[in-house]
């Protein structure tokens, strides 16, 4: 991805689109739909942007790619960006697409599990990344212990094989697979419903871009939000791109994902109901930060306000 030429970005014409690369955190899926939709329907182009979406993967390190200039915007996450502040990395969140993190824990039915608290003491397949996101939350709120952890490799087979275990998952994907393969409906516990409230699927960029070229950032944020509205309305164009990028993504899976996004108000709930998709509030950031300080994830003296700016959201879309 090339950094935009400042001269050209002031007065975009049909010919001089700004080259922008947006890096996602995973292979293309419904959770990325709005961005693909904005590409597919030409929303980005209307905003003078030529956007390339670069998929992430299990072991890609988006922050380094963002900071090295390989990416211009990156699909971030609330903990990650505050960690960045702690480490002096000048990246910043400019918008948050997901009001709720779709992170879930999944358990077998008829094991008497109805809430997160019931999982205490049971083996749970969790990925390494959980160690500085929701796992400390669970430890501090429900008294989970580290010896419950089993390494999760993003396949539900081991879960299906053992009724006693639970596993992590993404609201829109693992439950469906378990239904399909296991033939039963698992117990799905959305962490966001239990007070775990980081912003997810955010748009991060380098602080330097925000300062030198706020217009570009604004256009990207606006167009992405529009993309999401458009996607929730009619996902066909975006889905086509998703499946092109990730041929293994089934239509059924995408449809399920979209349904779940809507059902649980992942994009549209809380503040977003009034102020629209993408909105963030300082209070919520503070709330989250303080809770995670309590959980031992962040240092208390971190200036977490460096991690975000509210300058680009909550405005009428240009």
């Amino acid at each position, binding site marked *: 991805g090339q950094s935009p030429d400042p001269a050209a970005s002031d007065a975009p014409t049909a010919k001089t689109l700004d080259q922008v690369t947006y890096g996602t955190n995973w292979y293309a899926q419904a959770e990325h739909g709005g961005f693909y939709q904005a590409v597919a329907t030409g929303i980005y182009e209307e905003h003078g942007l030529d956007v390339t979406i670069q998929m992430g993967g299990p072991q890609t390190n988006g922050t380094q790619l963002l900071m090295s200039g390989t990416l211009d915007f990156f699909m971030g996450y609330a903990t990650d960006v505050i960690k960045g502040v702690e480490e002096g990395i000048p990246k910043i969140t400019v918008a948050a697409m997901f009001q709720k993190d779709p992170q879930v824990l999944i358990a077998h039915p008829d094991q008497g599990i109805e809430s997160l608290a019931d999982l205490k003491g049971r083996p749970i397949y969790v990925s390494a990344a959980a160690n500085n996101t929701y796992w400390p939350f669970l430890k501090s709120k429900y008294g989970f212990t580290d010896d419950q952890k089993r390494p999760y490799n*993003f396949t539900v087979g081991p879960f299906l094989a053992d009724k006693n275990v639970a596993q992590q998952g993404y609201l829109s994907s693992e439950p469906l697979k378990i239904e399909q393969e296991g033939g039963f409906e698992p117990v799905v516990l959305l962490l966001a419903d239990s007070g775990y409230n980081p912003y997810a699927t955010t748009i991060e960029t380098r602080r330097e871009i925000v300062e030198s070229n706020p217009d570009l950032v604004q256009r990207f944020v606006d167009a992405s939000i529009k993309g999401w509205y458009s996607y929730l309305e009619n996902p066909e164009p975006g889905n086509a791109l998703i499946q092109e990028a990730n041929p293994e993504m089934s239509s059924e899976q995408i449809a399920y994902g979209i349904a779940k996004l809507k059902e649980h108000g992942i994009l549209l709930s809380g503040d977003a109901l009034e102020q629209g998709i993408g909105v963030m509030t300082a209070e919520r950031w503070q709330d989250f930060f303080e809770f995670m300080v309590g959980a031992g994830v962040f240092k208390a003296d971190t200036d977490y306000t460096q991690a975000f700016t509210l300058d680009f959201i909550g405005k009428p879309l240009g």
Partner: protein
Amino acid sequence: MPTSQKTAPRPTPTPAPRLMQTSDPTAWQRLRSPEVLAPIVVGICILVAWELFVRITGLPPYLLPGPLLVLKTLGEEWNTLLPSLLITLQITICAFLAAVVSGLFIAVLFSQSKWIERSFFPYAVILQTTPIAAIAPLIIMWMRNNTFGALVVCAWIVAFFPIVSNTTLGLNSVDHNLANLFKLYNASRWQTLWYLRLPSALPYFLGGLKISGGLSLIGAVVAEFVAGTGGAKAGLAYQILMSSYNLQIPRMFAALLLITLSGVGIFVLLTILSNTLLKHWHESAIKLEN
């Protein structure tokens, strides 16, 4: 004076001492020869045992699919898996060639002076022991828009060391008498290298190739895990990951099977190459003849 002498009858004249032709088997005969059949029989036995195991224990296919199911899936998914296989093989071959060339070059450099070897060999280990996942972002950064290049670099890192290590060992295992001979005839560095050291190192080098062949393949797969590609230019690693996420375990095993078969294929090719190059002189390739 000798008392009795017995002289053998003069033999019927033979025109030349080296006449008899050892018959060369045709390619087809070779294919049916026990050397080829034996591993195939073993392979089939393993597959049968695996199938039986799966059936008897009643393991669900999402844990361990039987080989029949895997083969069936392979047939069904052939159209998506083949292009991915080709891409993985492309990366493998590029990385392997790069490893061969660079490994040989470095080993030759090492062999030129004990000093160079001592000073730098320990650092060649660094390449081997650095987790690719950790340095992949740096590589991707350097290679900017060249994903293929980045993948090749990652796979190369994995495949590089065994060639350097084995070839260096080989270059240092030159027969001392021959080394003296070359010294005596004032052979230049290059001549000693070309006519003496490299041939001496050949068995070791080829041994290194056999190890690196498989490693470049696995390197190509791992590289894709860390450098993340998908879509049209996705290799087998992507197929494995996606099948695994989608719990299409038979499909995952079909992809694994393709990788494994490629690995065996590379190994067999390198073994044939090795036997061809060494068949005239090295103990490892010639049958004991008296």
